[in-house]
């Protein structure tokens, strides 16, 4: 009987209860979920919390954090000037040679102690689950014992995904877990000979209750508002969103402020001064309250492997307005019927007009979202699928 036998190592590059980052949050929740089901789970990660500075902020070594064994290893960051140039060329769509790709990969943060821990102790683990695919930790460490390496892939249609360097990772791991059909389709386009894989979805915690009024009161928010949650950075479409909202507001004064929670600088552009409220990092309850209080949740990112935040919005009965450039989010919106997508600023403007002009219709549209999440993406369902794949792809000790 192989069920739940053997240790599962989950290997995110960052780990902690205050990390802002979809993949890291999901892996943390998955770790606790698997542990609760009887698996021997251990986290292998770094002492860093910030994925820009990669500063070593925590103590290395084995600690138990909220009942979870966590082994932390120090980051070595010797970012070379060349890395920035190579990164620019990758994003510009240049073809890099293999050696250039390798220099790019090794030119940033690295975690040699983690690498050697896995080199020494791979046999102690039944499976090692890595995320996300483009990080050095995943790239370097998943190839030490590929027969045990499972990827929580987080694949986006982005230039990195097409680098030759990642092909063996996609094709040679024990298995790849995908969060959506479009993510799987993308993987098959990039690597038709992709390793064993399965769409397992992504778990979302279902809040027991919401307190939207309390949220407004505690943060002094009056009137209608749009919500953005997550990392405030260019890669997530944040800057683009602010510029679009500024332009739209210049044409028509919409009755919305923008409330944002998460990490990163807000930097509102001209025209948005006083219209952006940063509530910072919120705990889970307050985050859920924010979703319930909002008129709509904005998802401006093109690079989403799943988008947990839109699920959290739908669970709270809040409509979603999302960048249609993300196939995954468009797929969710179309399947659930609970979200609108835009492909340019004018479409975003019309989405906001709809929201402003017909709030009851918008709320009615959003109503199907909660059922969509409950039918597909509760942790119970997702963990069932994850466990089935771990048992299928890896050998019990």
């Amino acid at each position, binding site marked *: 009987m192989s069920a739940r036998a053997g240790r599962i190592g989950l290997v995110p590059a960052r780990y902690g209860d205050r990390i802002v980052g979809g993949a890291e949050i999901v892996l943390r929740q998955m770790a606790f979920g698997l542990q609760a089901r009887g698996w021997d789970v251990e986290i292998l990660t770094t002492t860093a919390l910030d994925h820009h500075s990669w500063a070593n902020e925590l103590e290395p070594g084995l600690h138990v954090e909220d009942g979870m064994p966590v082994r932390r290893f120090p980051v070595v960051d*010797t970012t070379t000037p060349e890395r920035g140039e190579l990164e620019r060329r990758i994003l510009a769509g240049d073809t890099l040679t293999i050696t250039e790709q390798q220099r790019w990969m090794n030119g940033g943060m*690295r975690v040699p102690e983690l690498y*050697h821990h896995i080199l020494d102790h791979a046999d102690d683990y039944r499976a090692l689950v890595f995320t996300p695919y483009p990080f050095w930790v995943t790239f370097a460490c998943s190839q030490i014992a590929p027969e045990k390496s499972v990827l929580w892939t987080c694949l986006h249609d982005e230039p990195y995904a097409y680098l030759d360097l990642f092909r063996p990772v996609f094709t040679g791991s024990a298995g790849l877990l995908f969060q959506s059909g479009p993510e799987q389709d993308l993987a098959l386009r990039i690597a038709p000979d992709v390793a064993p894989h399965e769409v397992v979805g992504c778990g979302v915690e279902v809040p027991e209750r919401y307190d939207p009024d309390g949220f407004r009161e505690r943060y002094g928010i009056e009137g209608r508002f749009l919500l953005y949650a997550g990392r405030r950075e260019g890669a997530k479409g944040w800057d683009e969103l602010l510029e679009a909202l500024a332009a739209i507001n210049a044409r028509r004064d919409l009755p919305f402020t923008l409330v944002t929670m998460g990490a990163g600088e807000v930097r509102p552009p001209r025209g948005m001064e006083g219209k952006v409220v940063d509530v910072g990092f919120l705990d889970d309850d307050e985050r859920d309250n924010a979703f319930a209080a909002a008129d709509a949740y904005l998802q401006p990112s093109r690079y989403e492997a799943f988008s947990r935040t839109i699920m959290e919005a739908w669970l709270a009965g809040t409509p979603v307005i999302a960048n249609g450039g993300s196939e995954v989010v468009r797929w969710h919106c179309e399947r659930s019927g609970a979200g609108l997508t835009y492909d340019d600023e004018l479409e975003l403007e019309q989405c906001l007009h709809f929201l402003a002009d017909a709030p009851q219709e918008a709320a009615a549209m959003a109503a199907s979202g909660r059922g969509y999440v409950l039918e597909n993406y509760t942790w119970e369902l997702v963990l069932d699928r994850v466990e089935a794949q771990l048992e299928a792809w890896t050998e019990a000790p």
Partner: protein
Amino acid sequence: MRILMVTPYPPLRDGIASYAQQSVAALRAQGHDVEVLSPGPSAAHHHLDLVGPRGGLALAKRVRGYDKLVVQFHPDFFYPVPSSPTQRAEVSAALAVAFRLAPRVEVVVHEIDYRHGRGASPAARAARALWRQVDVVQVHSESERQRFVEAFGVPAGRVQIVEHGAAFVPRSRADRAGARASLGIEADARLFLSIGFIQPHKGYDRAIDAFRGLPAPARLDVVGSVRVEEPQFVAYAQELEDRAQAVRGAHVHVGYVSDELFDRWIIASDVVVLPYREIWSSGVLERARLLNRPVIATRVGALEEQAAGVEGVRLVDDDAQLRQAVWEFAQAEAEPFTAAPWPSAAAGRDAIQAEVVARAAQRRGGAVGAVSAHSASAQDVAFATAPLRRVRDVHLPDPGPGRGVRPFARRVVRKLTAWQMQPVVDQLNTLTRATVESVARATDAHEERGEPRERG
């Protein structure tokens, strides 16, 4: 024991890096405290630019805290490419300082130029002084050991032979069927595999030429990446791709190959073909051995010794033998060109002649047979390329059998000069085939334009 290993290291994909990683894992499993220093950023604990005398001196500052220094040695890690005798002397002297400061030094020699230890030049004296600092030199064969001792004046007792694959472990768990499915290889294919960094001295073009004409289900896959983007290496990769296009069943996959993917290809294969022009010893041979796949390899460098006593390795001396070995392994006869019978005499002599030409073209594997066999074009192409095709391959003269001074001298001369002569021979044969193809293509294009051409 605290050990510092100096080596290229993963995730850099490199044969020596992979070898080193497995050595590190084995040493650490024995309880040693091993740290790694690599020439560039990697999963190693430290990295240092080791090229030039500064590299050696910088290394000297690092070695004292360890009980033993282990160096995975390739000259390019330390000596500028190219380097003058003066530069070589400087680098050797600097490395000698590092080696002298280390309590104990072991060097695994993956490649070296013995000429640099011979003679009375300052560079040679510095090289010999450097190697005298080394407590243990590890090589992979007896001939390497003998040559090393002779060239660098190291006491024979310090030079050890270690099995190349001593610390190797499989990196893929796939079985043959699974490996094939994942690589898109037909289950019933007879798969010949040439794998490794794509460099002219690896001779993958020879494998393609040897394979030319083998019928399905045989297929040849050349797999690897260009290690250094030198123009001649990039051009060679392109040449291989062009060459494979003209050979049915031949495929070239230029791209990043991880350790796992490397092993998966070997598992998927029926035989590994190593048509090297020159090599020291072969990690691929060891991996094929580890994964229980037969090997066809050229008798160069120390491959003969490396393969001694290994079941399933067939060594060949030239292209003709390589082709024979490949074809015998395929257990194949050339596919009949057509199921149709020969033309009858009533069809006329020209019809029979056309069939002869077409079938011969087919045997050659399509080099001049890409056009319709019975078309006028096929005959024209055959006609145009005939003078070139009549030129036979060049081979180094066989020293012949027998005992005595003369046969021995011939064998010695051949051994001593082969490293210089074989590339010239290969290049001549390559040039001949390329010329045939070029003329064939030009003739074909001429025909397609419908331009009349005179026959002599």
